[in-house]
């Protein structure tokens, strides 16, 4: 999978690169409008992550351009602008997703995977880990022989962790993923704990108990073998 990241903040750019490279993505980096423009015109990407506020031009122009030139490329906007209006404008110009800064790297990773799947029916319609498989289209989880009865939030947590498999995912990023920006973290942590407890119980009943590992004080890790 080839990605283009257009972001002017050098630290952020290298962080994103670092995180996504480990996921097996091939990342091309552009740190201003011009570099982004040249790369978009010369190469083909599976997905582009574009910051709106760029030196030398508006990221939205890049989005528009890319959408016209290459409809099959997934586009994710990352921006500090967070009003409904900004989001709508971004999506109307052709972006597939809109992520507000500051974001968690695990969130960006999950969104990229979701966009790629929607756009290209890839990587898979099904994620398989030993005797556990997640069917993305039906939003079903199969453990051994049985289909698990998961609540919406339990499914979302499991999928989010699975999309960031073998990585520590922090509780605050799970909270933001599940309830959005305006949720107070202090409350949500108890709820995440409760959800994961239930999820784990359901997995345990079907001999899939060892997938979710708690990293004390930080979050969880999905262990894929």
């Amino acid at each position, binding site marked *: 999978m080839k990605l283009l990241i257009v972001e002017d903040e050098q630290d*952020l750019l290298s962080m994103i690169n670092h995180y996504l490279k480990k996921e097996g993505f091939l990342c091309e980096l552009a740190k201003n409008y011009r570099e982004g423009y040249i790369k978009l015109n010369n190469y083909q990407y599976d997905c582009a992550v574009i910051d709106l506020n760029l030196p030398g031009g508006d990221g939205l122009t890049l989005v528009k351009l890319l959408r016209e030139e290459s409809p099959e490329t997934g586009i994710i906007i990352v921006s500090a602008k967070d*009003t409904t209006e900004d989001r709508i404008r971004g999506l109307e110009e052709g972006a597939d997703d809109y992520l507000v800064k500051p974001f*968690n790297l695990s969130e960006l990773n999950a969104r990229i995977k979701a966009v790629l799947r929607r756009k290209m029916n890839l990587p898979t319609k099904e994620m398989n880990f030993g005797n556990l498989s997640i069917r993305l289209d039906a939003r079903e989880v199969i453990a051994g022989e049985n289909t698990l009865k998961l609540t919406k939030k339990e499914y979302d947590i499991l999928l989010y962790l699975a999309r960031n498999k073998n990585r520590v995912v922090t509780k605050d990023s799970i909270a933001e993923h599940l*309830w959005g*920006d305006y949720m107070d973290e202090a409350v949500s942590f108890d709820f995440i704990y409760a*959800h994961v407890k239930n999820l784990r119980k359901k997995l345990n009943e079907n001999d899939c108990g060892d997938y979710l590992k708690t990293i004390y004080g*930080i979050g969880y890790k999905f262990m894929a073998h």
Partner: protein
Amino acid sequence: MLGATVCSVAFIFFVLGHEATELQVKVGLFFLFLIVVPGVCFMYFFRWRMKKIRAQLFQTLEVLEHFDIDEPTPVKFEKSPYSAFNELNDYLLELINRVRKHYQANKQFTSNAAHELQTPLSVIKGHIELLLQSKRLGEKEIKTLGIILQNTNRLARLNSALILLSKIEHHRFADFKKVNLNRITYDVLNNFQDLIEIQHLHVRTNDNLNLEVEMSATLAEIMIANLIQNAIRHNNSNGWINIVIKKGKLCVINSGKVLEIEPRKLLKRFRRETNVEESLGLGLSIVQRICDHSGFSLDYQHEAGVHTLSVKF
């Protein structure tokens, strides 16, 4: 003035009392006339002048009364025929402008600081996230990282709440339209459904009426999400929430702990009941700010563990 009149009247009585000659009476009356007539004239003149001066004073006071430090319109005093008032007005104007400038600078600083903090904060968060993936971390290191992460998150949340407040204060939300509050309430409840279930809360909504309000859609969502979140968080397990939507009014009533501080104080920034850990204490003050800037009024009442927050539109 009054003294002189009394003196002359006394003189006349004195003269009359001593069987005065006609000349003496005439002299007395002449003096009386000489003193009383200009005296009365002077009195009326001063009264008239005082009235004018009072009117000037009230004019200045009225301008001051309508002065709002947040309003961008410049303060204007009308020119007065009295130089003293002009001086006073000039001085006040200078004072107002100076205060306003300082206030704006202060506001600007808060807003800039919050915005500038955003990037380094997300860089720190990102690097912690990267560091966490390292295989060489021991239990102790992870624990330390956990504490760093927890505090960075707190800082980041605090910061984004302050940014939100400053954005509301700067009228940065332009997406004004007719907003259906019933629908937003329903969406928010749906989003928090699991939180409600885990705490075994009973939610009842009383919304026979469709409440539509002209306001920013983003702010409407934030306002209702904050109100409901507040009702969920400060509830008892097995408690209840009652949402009442009436004509021009939305009330969120919930069971909860008995308050130890006055409810109005909870609307202020960083005020909170101490036993709820890690709460930022900004949720309700954000609601208050939204109400202030949209021209609504927010009221908080509490009686024996029943909390009522109502917004009047």
